[in-house]
């Protein structure tokens, strides 16, 4: 059983996302520790990419800022090594397919094992394109996090069945309709997923306030916060980040 499962063992899990290297590598280490201190159960380390198509403007800009400082994949590995000197928090990489592909699947997976990174979220590697990587990941006991969206529909069974670690329920569809309709849609989605798997479900739907966090946490095993953390990391301090995580974690506990 992977380290990821631990994140969902106790109460509802709080999952945070950071862009490695924004504002800089040193502060990113501090930010991850602040996330842990604030009560985060798992952290997604975003490896900055030149063309993060699946991300909104806040994260795109953060990627760009990191790249402008010449942060490369090797630097991100080094950053995780520094985190690991001080923390055992479950980690996954969030990265685009090309960065993993160019590293080489073997190399990248070995690195994850070395750094005790438990898995990967790859927004542009859908089910149909995962085979080559999955073989290597399974050999290395790494979890490929499956993403499921409101448009997945008849794809849900196969996605859910392949899921390991947790399932990332995500929408890039923007927030449409009223809050209530919205909640209903997601509960339908999570109920459907639960038919096929017992792997925990985390929701990332542009959540940033404690109230949203509470609502979402009723529907799933954890919530994921990305843009808001990235915004604070850019505009404010690790201290402020910790306080924010505490509020959010309190809300869902």
């Amino acid at each position, binding site marked *: 059983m992977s380290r990821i499962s631990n994140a969902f063992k106790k109460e509802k899990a709080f999952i945070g996302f950071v862009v490695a290297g924004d504002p800089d590598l040193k502060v990113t280490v501090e930010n991850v520790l602040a996330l842990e201190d604030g009560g985060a159960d798992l952290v997604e380390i975003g490896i900055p*990419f*030149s*063309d993060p*198509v*699946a991300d909104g*403007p806040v994260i*795109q*800009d953060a990627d*760009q800022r990191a*790249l402008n400082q010449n942060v*490369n*994949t*090797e630097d991100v590995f080094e950053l995780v090594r520094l985190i690991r000197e001080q923390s055992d928090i479950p980690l996954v990489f969030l990265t*685009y*397919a*090309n*960065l993993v*592909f*160019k*590293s080489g699947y073997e190399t990248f997976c070995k690195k994850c094992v070395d750094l005790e990174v438990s898995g990967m979220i790859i*927004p*542009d*590697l*859908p*089910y*149909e*394109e995962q085979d080559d990587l999955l073989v290597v990941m399974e050999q290395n006991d790494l979890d490929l996090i499956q*993403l*499921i*969206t409101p*448009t*997945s*529909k*008849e*794809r849900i069974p196969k*996605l859910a069945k392949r899921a390991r670690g947790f399932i990332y329920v*995500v*929408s*890039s*569809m*923007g927030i449409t309709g009223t809050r209530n309709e919205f909640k209903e849609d997601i509960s339908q989605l999570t109920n459907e997923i639960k038919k096929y798997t017992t792997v925990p479900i985390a929701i990332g739907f542009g959540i940033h306030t404690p109230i949203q966090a509470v609502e979402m946490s009723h529907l799933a095993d954890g919530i994921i916060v990305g843009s808001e953390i990235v915004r604070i990391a850019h505009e404010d301090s690790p201290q402020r980040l910790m306080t924010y995580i505490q509020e959010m974690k309190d809300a869902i506990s």
Partner: protein
Amino acid sequence: MSTKHGHYGEYGGQFVPETLMNELTKIETSYQEAKNDPEFQQEVHDLLNNYANRPSLLSYAKRMSDDLGGAQIYFKREDLNHTGAHKINNVIGQALLAKRMGKTRLIAETGAGQHGVATATIAALLGMECEIYMGKEDTERQKLNVYRIELLGAKVHPVTTGSMVLKDAVNAAMQAWTQRVDDTFYVLGSAVGPHPFPEMVHDFQSVISKEAKQQILAETGKLPDAVVACVGGGSNAIGSFAAFIDDSEVALIGCEAAGKGVDTKQTAATIERGSTGIFHGMKSKFMQNEDGQIDEVYSISAGLDYPGVGPEHSALADMHRAQYVGITDDEAVDAFEYIAKTEGIVAAIESSHAIAYVKKLAPTMRKDQVIICTISGRGDKDVASIAKYRGVDVDE
């Protein structure tokens, strides 16, 4: 070449967010049905012939053939299509498919504006909504094309992310599509992107070589010895090659933009200089650094200024079925001027890359040999930048 669920050798695939997968599957299914539906084929054919002005001429370039003193050169004149380039062939196909799928809204990326204009054109004709994503840098460099797109009734979104050029426009269009798939079809402008786009674009553009094959057989009684076309994403090239791929005696040559030189940083010669990667929904060759960050590329030609290439071209290159050569800005500009003076054709600077290679190739061939060179578009849009390149003041 034949494709198995969108894979061309090791290339191709569908590297897109889960959000789009069902939509891509729907397009795939709808397209397979449409492909086998004579009614759809007839609709496409009607618009190609009665609106886009096909078949395009295959015209003998007498003065150029004589001047170069080698092979006989024929031009496949896509510049004579309505809107002035091969792009219209593809948008007609995709827009009719979109309509068949019940979509009412088209979106598209554009670099300098060519594909944006083509998409806006067909949207106007079919009475569909249309929104075009264009890098902010490009909207500022190409204000006139922005206005042209708006004239045609479409809306232009300046894209302010990344380097604010073509690749960012693709990113933005993909994102916008993710956010609104129900009524919206993303009309991709070249033989790139996730399956089934490269296959669709291949099919819709292959009218170029289907016609050319018939035309050259009627004219000379035999197949050409070489087919030459420029390669940006690769749509006019794949369209020019398609009907000849199985004729192994026909050499297929794609001309990439080498910018200031294949060995410089300022180049867009993807197949020669790039490496395999995953981007814009496909596995193919890309200009990228060793980590896999996508490069900014350079060419005088906006239409070739793209860091990737369609997966089928990557496969054809690996198999040595097609050959890809780099043509520099200088060579392309020379060829632009050469064909104007020799044949009275102002060809697109993109197409001039193909012409530049023909200038080198023809003299090495025998007089009884034949080259078909695709003139992918007309060059009116390029006259000002050629003047600038030559240091001539044309500001009004």
